[in-house]
């Protein structure tokens, strides 16, 4: 069996071979390993119109990329960082598993017939299970599909999302509670990307017990916000942060970001005027490593907002054209855009004008 550089170094480290006297070598080896180590995964479109998933290291070097049959969306990273699962953009039906230790494609799988992926998922804390947001479209029912990562990602079950259009689902820090943003919009592959119930949508957040799929709590938006489709989420300390897309009158002044905690109402973050120019659409939500800051992208408005997670105040707004993806790094956030850039601290760490980074970037740091 061949070992990846990372596995090799891990085993060396675990064996205790690297004694103090060998530190210079160890430092050098770690630095080199670091440069080859997956730090970010994102999907992209290439100049020839083809789609791919790409794995990038901390410095912005492309480690490898893998062809996708169609447009991808978001990526779930395993807790031990061995696997990354790239999901198809809705109404796609593929999930591609990348092996980040060996830098190669591992396998691909699909949801059951009459289901499609929404494009997001997450792993259980032990990495043995993968959960994916899905649409049981004939029954217009949101589903969390469950896949066994130890058995070639075979599907072993499913839970209700307790709503329509579960776009993103995340696991809260207790390892038990799944928070699901049910966007409320009915779609069907017969009418690709057509929104079928804009006049009657009911977005809400559901909390589901990972152990048995039972509903723990649910919170709906007030009626006047029923066309704010709740879609992307990230957990910051004791609240989840949610980004939405507003389907109502575009001139309405609507708060596009909200926070929630079980037992409370969904609270809008800042007044509607703050979102002027964001074109009624938040593309991604991400919390930084220590949970103190939250970033929300507005790719249609070419803006990225950084929020204080405790005070809920806007810290700053960055201008990045077509920036959809955001993920935490050691110092803050890495931002990806549709012009082929990866940004850190307002500097590009990667630029390829021949590609367009897709809506999300995931951190494997």
């Amino acid at each position, binding site marked *: 069996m061949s070992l990846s550089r990372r596995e090799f170094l891990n085993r060396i480290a675990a064996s205790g071979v690297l004694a103090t006297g060998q530190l210079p070598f160890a430092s050098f080896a770690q630095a080199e390993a670091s440069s080859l180590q997956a730090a970010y995964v994102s999907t992209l479109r290439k*100049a020839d119109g083809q789609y791919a998933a790409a794995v990038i290291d901390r410095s912005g070097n492309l480690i490898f990329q893998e062809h996708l049959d169609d447009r991808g969306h978001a990526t779930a990273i395993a807790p031990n960082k061995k696997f990354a699962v790239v999901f198809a953009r809705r109404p796609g039906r593929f999930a591609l598993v990348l092996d980040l230790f060996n830098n190669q494609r591992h396998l691909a799988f699909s949801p059951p017939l009459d289901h499609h992926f929404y494009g997001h998922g997450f792993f259980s804390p032990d990495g043995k299970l993968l959960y994916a947001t899905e649409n049981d479209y004939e029954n217009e029912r949101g589903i969390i599909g469950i896949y066994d990562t130890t058995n070639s990602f075979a599907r072993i079950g499913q839970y209700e999302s307790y709503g329509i259009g579960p776009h993103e689902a995340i696991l809260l820090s207790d390892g038990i509670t799944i928070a699901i943003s049910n966007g409320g919009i009915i779609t069907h592959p017969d009418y*690709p990307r057509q929104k079928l119930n804009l006049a009657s949508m009911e977005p809400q957040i559901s909390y589901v017990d990972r152990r048995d799929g039972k509903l723990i709590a649910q919170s709906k938006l007030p009626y006047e916000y029923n066309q704010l489709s709740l879609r992307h989420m990230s957990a910051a300390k004791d609240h989840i942060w949610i980004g939405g*897309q507003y389907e109502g009158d575009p001139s309405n002044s609507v708060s596009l970001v909200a926070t929630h905690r079980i037992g409370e109402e969904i609270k809008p973050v800042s007044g509607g005027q703050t979102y002027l120019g964001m074109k009624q659409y938040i593309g991604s939500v991400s919390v930084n490593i220590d949970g103190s800051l939250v970033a929300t992208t507005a*790719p249609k408005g070419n803006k990225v907002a950084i929020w204080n997670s405790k005070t809920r105040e806007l810290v700053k707004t960055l201008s990045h054209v077509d920036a959809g993806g955001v993920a935490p790094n050691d110092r803050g956030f890495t931002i990806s855009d549709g012009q082929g850039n990866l940004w850190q601290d307002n500097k590009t760490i990667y630029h390829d004008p021949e590609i367009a980074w897709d809506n999300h970037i995931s951190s494997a740091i």
Partner: protein
Amino acid sequence: MITFSFKSKPNTRRHLSKIISPALAGIVIVGTAVNAWGQTPETNFKPIIKQTIEKAILPGYKNLTRAAKAQESDLTKLCEQPNKENLAKAQQAFRPLVAAWSGVEMYRIGPAIKNNRQEKLFFWPDRKSIGLRQVRKLIDTQDETALATETLQKKSVAVQGMLALEYVLFGKNAEALATSKPKSYRCDYGVNIAKAIQTTGQEIIDDWASPSGYTTMMLDTGPSNPIYRSDTEVMQDLLRISSEMIQSTRDLKILNTIKESPEKSKPKRAPFWRSNQTLHAYQSNLKAVETLFTQGGLGNLTSRHTQSLSFELGQTNTFLMKLEKENIAWEKQVKQTKSHETLSFTLIPLEGAHYIVNDLIPEKLGLSLGFNSLDGD
């Protein structure tokens, strides 16, 4: 067997690229030789935007309210004097109404989005026949609240628009409208739907035309504008709705209906099959796109591409017109091999038309949308 996919056809696109502009082949990346908002500094889009609103959008909605008024008038006569002749007249009045609606269907922006007006006018697609069930229930229960415009407008979006009216005029037992007693519920409900269409259409016109309305929003762009920060963004919206109308006609209305073969086709997925106005509606949809470019003035900026667009849309409408002249019920026509083949031929020029509007013209004018600025996820 010919098979069609929902995806674009690279070969068709490559072919078109060579014909239309060899230099423009390849994908569009924002910012190529344009500023951060995608606008070439010397382009002044404002006169085009103004002309588009004045010559294409507003006349389209005025035409809708006029046609709905005529429909109301013919229906009122039918309600007062139910007979075959008056029923035929009321049914005939539906045809120009379908054309008028299909001429504005593409303007799914601003005033049409507000208060779900687009859905109120046209609840489609209705995959689970929700509208049908709700309309039948109203007729069965003779719900009086559907007989006043104000209360009807507060009901489900599915019972107050074009397809609800179509069911009243052409649905099951519609022939009884000619033999029922004067002022029958079904007939009065039809009159009231025609009134509701006028009201909703007028609300849209008012929201376009009011001093602080959408026209002002489109013309007075800038950082404090809640929707449009630049004229470029307005132009992008106009191109987006044009592109969506072509794509919707191709993928949702034709391809999704005819499927791979006559046997697999699902003609009742199409709008206006009950009144057999499907082909008429599609032609009007596509003419509306052309009108936006020709009457609206967008075509002056890109005359060569607009000529190509007119050619592709004209080709499509030639096929559709030929089929319409056969005067066969839509659900039977789609099942016929020859007609199915003709319908499948429309997919090719529509693909070309979509490519011109979605890729070539935006690139030519520096108006390309960003990859992540497309339909949100």
